[in-house]
């Protein structure tokens, strides 16, 4: 740990922000095409974020501000830990449990700040968001657990590296197909894409946790959302789609995976929150457990199929 690590960390943050925000902008265009229209400019997402940061804001007390800072801080720390194509600012700390629990710092900060606004819609939104998390995380964690068991490692970069060099069939998504499907479904839930977006449903709870944010707080939320998206997609990408040997491969795969998520969510209405829980605890959970048992007892998938 030296000064360079922090400089690298900062550069990673900057790069991730530019990359993910551009991608979000492009995906707004993709969604627009799905809806038979032109859609926003590709750099619209940047404009939105900077505009929000530019505006005046309202604060509902110190926890409202503190939560936002804590959320963004926690998420940015998590981003620094994410290995991108083998590069890590702080080598060796890309433990999957560390990442997924550091992610929770951000969530908690956001939840705290939202509930601190004193708005009931926000509290309902937070309650839904936490429930949603319980829904998608259990199947996903079981699959990740299986991976850790299979490869004796809980490091993202190591698991990603293990899948490379064997072509497409070396990816865990193909070695453990059930687990791969679960991961993709869970990714939809993690990203808060439809049909699992009931916690920000504007027509039900007026955008939920975001209700009271304006100005720089809202800008923070947008930046946070970009970072969070990056973390979530990256986790799945590294664990199931082999990460990337080079940065370009990584970005390309990332873009494809993220766009795919967006296209699915473009033609989906949203589940009610209890329906989402029921859904996750029916099909994906069963699939995850079956996959886990197969890997633990037969070892199929640890080695290549062919």
């Amino acid at each position, binding site marked *: 740990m030296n000064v360079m690590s922090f400089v690298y960390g900062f550069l990673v943050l900057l790069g991730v922000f530019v990359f993910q925000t551009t991608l979000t902008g492009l995906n707004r265009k993709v969604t627009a095409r*799905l*809806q*038979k*229209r032109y859609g926003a400019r590709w750099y619209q997402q940047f404009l939105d974020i900077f505009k929000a940061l530019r505006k005046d804001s309202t604060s509902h007390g110190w926890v409202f501000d503190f939560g936002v800072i804590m959320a963004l801080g926690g998420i940015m720390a998590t981003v620094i830990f994410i290995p991108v194509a083998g590069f890590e600012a702080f080598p060796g700390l890309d433990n999957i449990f560390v990442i997924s629990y550091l992610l929770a710092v951000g969530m908690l900060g956001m939840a705290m700040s939202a509930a601190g606004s004193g708005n*009931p*819609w926000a509290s*309902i939104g937070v309650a839904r968001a936490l429930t949603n998390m319980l829904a998608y995380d259990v199947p996903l964690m079981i699959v990740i657990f299986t991976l850790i068991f299979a490869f004796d490692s809980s490091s993202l970069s190591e698991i990603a590296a293990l899948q490379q060099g064997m072509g497409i069939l070396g990816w865990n998504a193909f070695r453990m197909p059930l687990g791969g499907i679960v991961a993709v479904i869970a990714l939809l839930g993690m990203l808060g894409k*439809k*049909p699992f*977006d*009931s916690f920000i*449903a*504007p*027509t*039900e*709870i*007026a*955008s939920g946790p975001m209700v009271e944010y304006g100005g720089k707080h809202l800008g923070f939320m947008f930046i946070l959302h970009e970072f969070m998206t990056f973390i979530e997609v990256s986790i799945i990408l590294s664990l199931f789609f082999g990460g990337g040997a080079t940065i370009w491969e990584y970005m390309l795969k990332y873009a494809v995976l993220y766009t795919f998520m967006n296209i699915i969510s*473009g*033609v*989906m*209405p*949203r*589940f*009610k*929150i209890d*329906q989402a829980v029921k859904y996750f605890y029916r099909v994906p959970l069963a699939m995850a457990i079956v996959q886990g048992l197969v890997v633990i007892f037969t070892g199929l998938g640890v080695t290549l199929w062919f």
Partner: protein
Amino acid sequence: MNEVKLFLGPQHPGMHGNYSVHMYVDGDIIKKARPTPGFLHRGFEKLMERRYWMGNLALIPRICVPEPDTNEMVYAMGVEALANIEIPEKAHWIRMLVLEMARVAIHLMSLGSIGGPTGLYTATYWAIAQRDLLLDLFEELCGARIYHMYIVPGGVRKDLPEGFTDKVLAMMDELDEKIPEYEDLILKHPVIHARTKDNILLPAEVVWELGVTGIGMRSAVGKEYDLRKVKPYAYYDKVDFEVPTATYSDALTRLNLKVRELYQSMRIIRQVIDKMPSKGAVNVPVSTGSALRWTVPAGMVYSAVESSRGEYGYFIVSDGKEMPYRIAVRGASYPQGLLGIEKYLKGHRIDDASLWMDSMGVCTPEIDR
């Protein structure tokens, strides 16, 4: 137990129009709901007493924003009944054409707006753009997209433009292609099923208690209770159409009926174009008096037509002068929009509050007037 007071509207994405429902919520169940109308109250009934019979033509479409033609038809029918005049045959056909086109437009819009409460925005984008193409036809017909002021007492304002019917038929052909697409996207979507099936029930007793009409009534009662059938106006007795019904009314059934009515409306439009005489007058002068200041014989009459949400009625009182003495408006969604919310929104979840408004077809401007 600590109840929370939540407001659905007036400024809430889940509320179409400007209306408010005060909900007392325990957990996520609505324990008490109070409708709060009046945000769109403009005092129409008072204003109409202060305008000439002709001048009111400008006011009446604005009572119900999404469906103005129904208002024009009701007003025209009422005045004609008071003045006791018969209008030319072709005017009847044109009126039916316009009314059914309007019905197609509003059904498309409400089919698309199911995307709001359920989050299927793609449906909204598609359906409303499709409706917009239909509005272009209206624009060609009368020069306005929304407020047409086309159906006037004594007939319609002027004859159809050249080649209009062909364009309408072409549009119907296009819709024939497009609506199955929307059905695939909306009605067959498993998540939409999860949201709407067995949800937001409307039993027949409630229909009779509240006085709900339209799709809500027919989906629960299972009879063809449609004013176009029960008490035909214009030439609805001369065309062949079915009124789709059901006996179990949940949100999905009502959505289904909407689409089936859409097909029936298109069927009527084709028949109307087929049967419409190509020549003939389209209007007659209403009554004596100068061109703009007619007088209408004294009397009281109630006229009603079937709008997309049910019985739409005007009670018109004339004292023989140049202005109406009193006009009372029965908005089609009045029963479900006020008493329905108060009595039957409770017990639902807040997730469904917006869907409730949408599925019951609550149109706020016609309640507020």
